[in-house]
C-alpha cells in the first residue's frame, strides 16, 4: 500500500492538472462563442456570392469562350494540391488526428504527385515527421483568421493553377456541426465546378457575363477558403472544450478515488496504532 504522503502528493498533482484543464475549458468556451459569431457573420456574403455565381454562370453558359476560362480548366490530375486545415495547438481530443487521417486517405485515393499546403501547425508537423513535401505553410493565422489571410492563400493557389504548376486543388477542414460534433469535409476548390441553376433571370449586365464570372471566381475561391478557416476555428474550440470538460471530470474522479484510498490508509494507520497501544498496555498487566 502506498504511504499517506505519496497519496497526498498524487492528489495535489492531479488537482493541478485539473486546474489547467478547467481553465482551458473556460478559455475555449469564450473563444468558441466568438468563433461561432464570426461564422454566422460571414454567412450572408458567402450565401449571396454563391447565388450570384449561379446567376452569372447561367448567363455565361452560352458564351463560347467559357471553356477557355483559366479557373474552369479541367486537366488530367498530374499534380494535386491539398490544403489541409488543422489547429495550431493540441489538447483538442481527436480533432487533429481526424483531419490528418482524412488527408492520408486522400493521398491513398489520388494518383499522381501530391503536395500539401498546411494551414495550422499540427498538420504541418504531422506530415513533416512523415517526410512529405510541404509546399506552403500558414502557421498562427487560424486564431484570428481574416479574409485577407484567406485571400493570400487563394491568390497563391490560383496563380499556381493558372500557370499549370498544379492541376487541381482540394481543401480538407473540419466543419462545425455542434459543440459535440465536427464533420470532416473535403471540397474540390479548383478547377471550379460551377453550380447549376434551373431557372434563369434576365438581368441587365453592366459588364459581359463572362467578365463578371472571371471577377467572381477568385472571390468565390477566397470565400471557400475563408469559410474553411472559420469553421475549423470554431470546431477546434468546440473540440477542445469537450475534451477538456471530460478531462476535468476524469481528474475529479481520480481525486475522489485517491481521497478514498488516502482515508482508508489513514484509518488503517490509526487502527494499527490503537492495537499497538492496547496490546502494549495488555502486556504490562
Amino acid at each position, binding site marked *: 500500500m502506498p504511504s499517506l504522503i505519496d497519496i497526498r502528493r498524487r492528489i495535489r498533482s492531479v488537482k493541478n492538472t485539473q486546474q489547467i484543464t478547467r481553465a482551458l475549458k473556460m478559455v475555449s468556451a469564450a473563444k468558441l462563442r466568438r468563433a461561432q459569431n*464570426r461564422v454566422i*457573420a*460571414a454567412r*450572408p456574403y*458567402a450565401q*449571396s456570392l454563391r447565388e450570384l455565381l449561379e446567376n452569372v454562370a447561367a448567363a455565361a453558359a452560352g458564351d463560347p469562350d467559357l471553356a477557355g476560362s483559366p479557373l474552369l480548366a479541367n486537366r488530367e490530375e498530374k499534380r494535386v494540391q491539398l490544403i489541409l486545415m488543422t489547429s495550431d495547438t493540441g489538447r483538442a481530443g481527436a480533432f487533429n488526428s481526424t483531419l490528418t487521417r482524412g488527408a492520408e486517405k486522400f493521398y491513398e485515393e489520388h494518383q499522381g504527385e501530391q503536395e500539401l499546403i498546411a494551414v495550422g501547425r499540427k498538420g504541418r508537423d504531422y506530415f513533416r515527421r512523415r517526410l512529405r513535401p510541404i509546399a506552403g505553410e500558414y502557421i498562427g493565422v487560424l486564431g484570428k483568421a481574416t479574409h485577407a489571410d484567406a485571400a493570400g492563400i487563394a491568390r497563391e493557389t490560383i496563380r499556381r493553377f493558372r500557370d499549370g504548376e498544379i492541376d487541381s486543388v482540394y481543401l480538407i477542414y473540419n466543419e462545425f456541426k455542434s459543440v459535440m460534433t465536427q464533420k470532416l469535409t473535403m471540397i474540390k476548390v479548383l478547377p471550379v465546378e460551377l453550380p447549376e441553376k434551373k431557372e434563369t433571370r434576365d438581368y441587365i449586365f453592366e459588364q459581359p457575363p463572362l467578365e463578371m464570372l472571371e*471577377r467572381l471566381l477568385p472571390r468565390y475561391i477566397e470565400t471557400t477558403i475563408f469559410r474553411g478557416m472559420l469553421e475549423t476555428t470554431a470546431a477546434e474550440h468546440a473540440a477542445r472544450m469537450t475534451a477538456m470538460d471530460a478531462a476535468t471530470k476524469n481528474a475529479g474522479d481520480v481525486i475522489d478515488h485517491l481521497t478514498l484510498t488516502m482515508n482508508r490508509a489513514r484509518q488503517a494507520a490509526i487502527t494499527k496504532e490503537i492495537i499497538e497501544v492496547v496490546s502494549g498496555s495488555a502486556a504490562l498487566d
Partner: protein
Amino acid sequence: MADFSLTVATPERRLVDERATEANIPGLGGYFGVLPGHAPLLSGLGSGTMTWVSGGQTRILAVMGGFVEVLGDSVRVLADNAKPKEEIDRAKALELLKQAQQALSEHPDQWQDLTEALQRAQAEVDTAAK
C-alpha cells in the same frame, strides 16, 4: 412610399440590412441610382462612396470593389471591403492615398493593380470628408 431592401455585406460581416427608398452606388462603369422597381441588374462594384436614403435620412458608406445585384425588391451589395464613416481614420487614409500615388508614379507598368489601390484609398478619403 415604396421602398426596397438593401443589404451590404463584406466577407467578414454584414454592415447594412435595412429598407431604403433610394440608393446611389458606385458601379464599375460609374455611379448609378436605384429606385424601387428598378430592372434586374448585375454589375461589378467600383470604389467610392455609396449613399442611400433610409427612413428619410441619408446615409453613407465607403465601399471598395465587389459586386452589386439589383433584383426586384432587393439590392444586394457584396463589397470586398466597406467602411462606415466612423471607422475611417482620415490621417491614415490620406497617408495610404499618398503612398498609392507615389507607387503609381514609380511603377507605371503595374498601373492596373495600383490604380485599384489608389481608388480604394480615394474612396476612404472621400467618404471621410462627407
